[in-house]
């Protein structure tokens, strides 16, 4: 069993959700239910398993239910029906004090429009989670100072949110979420409100932090490039239904339907795809002498391999090696062209 288990979640908005639930379970879609009952289907039979330590990205356009989904994980929204558990613990069974304790200790959340407390300075914002836990001032300020430094805002402790740029505000949001050392980081379109360059910086920063922290991160976005860059695995939502779940390469190489295919069309494949997903596996073809001279790691992005083959049509294939140095496959000019043209 995975760390976070979401099973058959339905969420229906409206005055009498139970009535519409029967229709949804019987297979009616969002538009039919809206026409028949006036209820809006937020999530339609969503089941997901999220592993400890992975970055799990939920991607969808507005109205797809992605923000509703992430709010189920800390019960800011309760499902109409379904089950949610963390490490085997059923969070829907928790009463309010237990739920608050669970939120305080184990979860941190980052919001699209930052959700900072405008009447508190950076220090007090970052220390907020610890204050809610009831930690003494000394301890929470020490922890807050550490995280403020970590996200690159040392010297801004006494500034107020409205004195900071968007990127800096979101660094505060990130520091605030990390300051309680939660197991799970929920990020709701955390970088969507930022300028493209700042957004890219923040993505890099998050990936860097994650290599050290190994948190379980659930990241919501409407941007497939962002999903492919950050996600160990990606779930694609449409109209409250789960369309596809998979690793970035699987999404790009084997889109589940035309909807996903339309998204992946404009993706820079050279950056997303890695050698191992394009290579000819070793069982198909024995390695030759020259190939052993040109070894590359199986995680190398295609972007870094392409220039070598651009030089000449005569270029020899690479041997692809895994983490332990064993040859697992080969990659040649034909493999690359095949994938990039698809």
């Amino acid at each position, binding site marked *: 069993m995975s760390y976070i288990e979401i099973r058959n979640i339905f969420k229906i908005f409206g005055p009498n959700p139970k009535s519409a639930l029967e229709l949804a379970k019987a297979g009616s879609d969002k538009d039919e239910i809206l026409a028949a009952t006036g209820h809006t289907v937020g999530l339609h039979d969503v089941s997901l398993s999220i592993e400890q330590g992975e970055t799990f990205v939920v991607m969808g356009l507005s109205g797809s239910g992605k923000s509703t989904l992430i709010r189920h994980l800390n019960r800011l929204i309760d499902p109409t029906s379904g089950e949610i558990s963390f490490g085997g613990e059923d969070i829907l069974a928790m009463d309010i004090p237990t739920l608050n*304790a669970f*939120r305080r200790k184990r979860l941190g959340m980052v919001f699209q429009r930052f*959700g900072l407390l405008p009447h508190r300075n950076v220090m007090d914002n970052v220390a*907020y989670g610890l204050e*809610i836990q009831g930690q003494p001032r000394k301890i929470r300020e020490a922890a807050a100072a550490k995280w403020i430094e970590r996200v690159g805002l040392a010297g801004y402790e006494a500034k107020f949110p409205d004195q900071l740029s968007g990127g800096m505000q979101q660094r505060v949001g990130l520091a605030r979420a990390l300051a309680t050392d939660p197991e799970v980081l929920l990020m709701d379109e955390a970088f969507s409100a930022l300028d493209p360059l700042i957004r890219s910086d923040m993505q890099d920063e998050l990936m860097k932090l994650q290599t050290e922290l190994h948190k379980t991160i659930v990241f919501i976005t409407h941007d497939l490039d962002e999903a492919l860059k950050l996600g160990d695995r990606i779930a694609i939502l449409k109209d409250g239904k789960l369309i596809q779940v998979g690793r970035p390469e699987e999404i790009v190489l084997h889109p589940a339907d035309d909807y996903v295919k339309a998204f992946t069309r404009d993706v820079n494949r050279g950056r997303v795809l890695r050698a191992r997903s394009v290579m000819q596996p070793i069982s198909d073809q024995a390695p030759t002498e020259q190939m052993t001279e040109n070894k590359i790691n199986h995680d190398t992005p295609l972007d870094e391999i392409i220039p070598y083959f651009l030089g000449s049509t005569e270029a020899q294939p690479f041997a692809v090696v895994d983490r332990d140095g064993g040859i697992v496959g080969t990659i040649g000019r034909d493999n690359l062209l095949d994938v990039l043209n698809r």
Partner: protein
Amino acid sequence: MFPEQLNVPLGKWVNQFVDWLVINYGAAFEAFADSLLTVLVALEQVLRGAPWWVVLIAIAAITWHASKNWKLVLVLVVAMFAIGMLGLWDKAMQTLALMIVATSLSVIIGVPVGIAMALSNRLRAVMLPILDTMQTMPSFVYLIPALMLFGLGKVPAILATVIYAAPPVMRLTDLGIRLVDPEVIEASRSFGASRKQILFGVQLPLALPNIMAGINQTTMMSISMVVIASMIGARGLGEQVLMGIQRLDVGAGMEAGIAIVLLAVVFDRIGQAYGKRSQRNPSAEDA
């Protein structure tokens, strides 16, 4: 003509109800009136007993604390000084005491009611028409039963003022809390804040500018009640206006009217200065 058979004897019922209140709960109302009166009389004695320049210094200090603006301090001190020059200092102090008690009572009742209205849509739906009634009902209508319950004098004046002046602080407390950014509340909930922690740590501090605006309006409205309050026996500037009307002494009425306006200006400016300050945490000034 409207058919007489359809008449409802509402007036008679109200009379019976008030009689019943007076007979059964007269003692309780009197006890309440006495405690209110004790506070008011003590405050009045302090204000009237203090030398005029002590009161001026106190007002200057409060204005400085609120605004950190010496020009405003000067203007308000001059305004208070002018009241003294009109020969109305003592009466102004009586009015001031009445206003402070009425406004404090309005805020003590109004802020919690406003909070409750913000947290419950049902209560809000009930309260809004009541507040409209409180503000539009001619005050003489409830002055009569108030007189019967509390007798002539300061207490019914305070109650009439509270009924008229409390709605703005209730409305603006409700509005202020409802206007707090829902994402900030959501963020607070996501960190496991209890309802109490959200109310005192997030909603009230962020609603404070609106609450201060409400308190300011409440103060202004309580000043505007002074003339009516004087009709049921409250002393002070209103009494002077009333006397001007009764004796057709235009000059005396005008003097008292100007003093009321000056007092209102002083309170409005101090209230606004506190309102402006509350928009940002005080520690921002050090940043």
